[in-house]
């Protein structure tokens, strides 16, 4: 039995096959509408995250399955003071697969150690969010036909942004990737990511302070939130925040086939005037997340063979 706890739990080949399945589902969803008849997804959200939970629930419902679960630990007497290990043992009897979100880092990994059903990490604190990473890759692939050869600018909070770290770790497994890390000094990519992940990969990379510097070169612009609480003082925040807001004006220098991604929710880092631009694909990205999760549920339930290694087609 396989789980998805870390985006790198799947090899690049497995990931590619999974994304390919996601595309097949997107193209003809009716073919998959009853593939999970009689199956139940448990959504164990110890911390509320409406978007992610709805995406998982939509995925399971579109497959003909059903969902049960809770949306925050406070409202669930079943989980009060109960260990993660006990919760998953119990849910193993109620559901066929589980998506777990938890405020503690590593909680879904603990669950996977005790579970009798596949566990999907739906976000564990500031640590990992592998279905977001798969969704990002899916969007890049949909837009370009492949991930290889992409020039990507990651913009905003590159220090604390877990989606950015996971995406970098996944992207280095592809060929000829060029990274531009666009952030204020205070929110640079952590040095361990550069030293342990980016440098050994041999891919080209550069740190820049302004998105305008690299805009014409980008195939993908991955925007993230710059949060006020990440700064030591209000002055720094006010001084810096505008530099990391995407506007129509800044887009003027960009390629025609640029894709703008954002893990959502956004606050103000993408001006609403950009939403109408065909290059703004963040809502399409969120929609793609449902197909990715459908593919993932089918794969982990063993209903779609040939995705994971060692299963045979």
């Amino acid at each position, binding site marked *: 039995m396989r789980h998805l706890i870390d985006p790198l739990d799947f090899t690049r080949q497995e990931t590619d096959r999974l994304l390919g399945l996601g595309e097949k589902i997107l193209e003809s969803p009716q073919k998959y509408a009853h593939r999970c008849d009689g199956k139940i997804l448990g959504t164990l959200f110890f911390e509320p995250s409406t978007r992610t939970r709805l995406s998982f629930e939509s995925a399971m419902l579109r497959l003909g399955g059903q969902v049960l679960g809770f949306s925050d630990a406070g409202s669930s007497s079943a989980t009060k003071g109960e260990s993660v*290990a006990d919760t998953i043992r119990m849910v193993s009897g109620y559901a066929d697969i589980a998506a777990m979100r938890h405020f503690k*880092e590593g909680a879904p990994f*603990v669950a996977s150690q005790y579970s009798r059903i596949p566990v999907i990490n739906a976000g564990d604190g500031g640590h990992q969010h592998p279905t977001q990473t798969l969704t990002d890759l899916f969007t890049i692939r949909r837009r370009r036909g492949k991930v290889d050869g992409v020039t990507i600018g990651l913009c905003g909070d590159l220090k604390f942004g877990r989606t950015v770290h996971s995406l970098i770790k996944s992207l280095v497994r592809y060929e000829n990737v060029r990274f531009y890390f666009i952030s204020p000094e205070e929110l640079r990519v952590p040095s361990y990511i550069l030293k342990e992940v980016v440098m050994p990969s041999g891919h080209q990379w550069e740190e820049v302070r302004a998105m305008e510097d690299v805009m014409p070169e980008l195939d993908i612009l991955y925007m993230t939130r710059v949060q006020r609480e990440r700064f030591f003082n209000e002055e720094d925040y006010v001084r810096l925040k505008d530099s990391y807001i995407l506007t129509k004006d800044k887009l003027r220098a960009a390629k025609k086939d640029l894709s703008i991604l954002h893990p959502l929710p956004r606050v103000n880092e993408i001006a609403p005037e950009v939403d109408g631009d065909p290059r703004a694909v963040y809502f399409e990205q969120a929609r793609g997340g449902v197909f990715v999760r459908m593919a993932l549920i089918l794969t982990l339930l063993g209903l779609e063979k040939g995705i994971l290694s060692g299963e045979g087609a």
Partner: protein
Amino acid sequence: MLNIDSIENGIVIDHITAGRGMRVYDLLELQALDTCVAIIKNARSEKYGKKDIIKIEGVTDIDLDVLGFIDDHATVCIIRDGKLAEKKRPHLPKKLVNIVKCKNPRCITSVENVDQVFYLCDEKAHRYRCRYCEQEYKK
């Protein structure tokens, strides 16, 4: 002055960084042995000035992996029939189980009763990461 000649069969852990002898004793769980164990603190060392030494009588098969993590200066001498049979430098264990605790307050190990597991992420720099939250262990 004690020396290894006084052991017929056993292990001498020499060149332990001064002050770490008791930690090594604890982590190797030597209190569980009923044979003779000697800890020598602050012995004179030509190399380091001071050192700790642990001598264990009658046992030659202790799991010494953890030693590499605590003190990679240490040397391990296996004594058989009063002679030095083997001399080894401890190597860094790939995995540490219940040796150190994760200090990340957001880590699940801070609330859930599970093994504390760390894995070696950088052999050269002796760096370990928590298996759960991936935070690096800082001594």
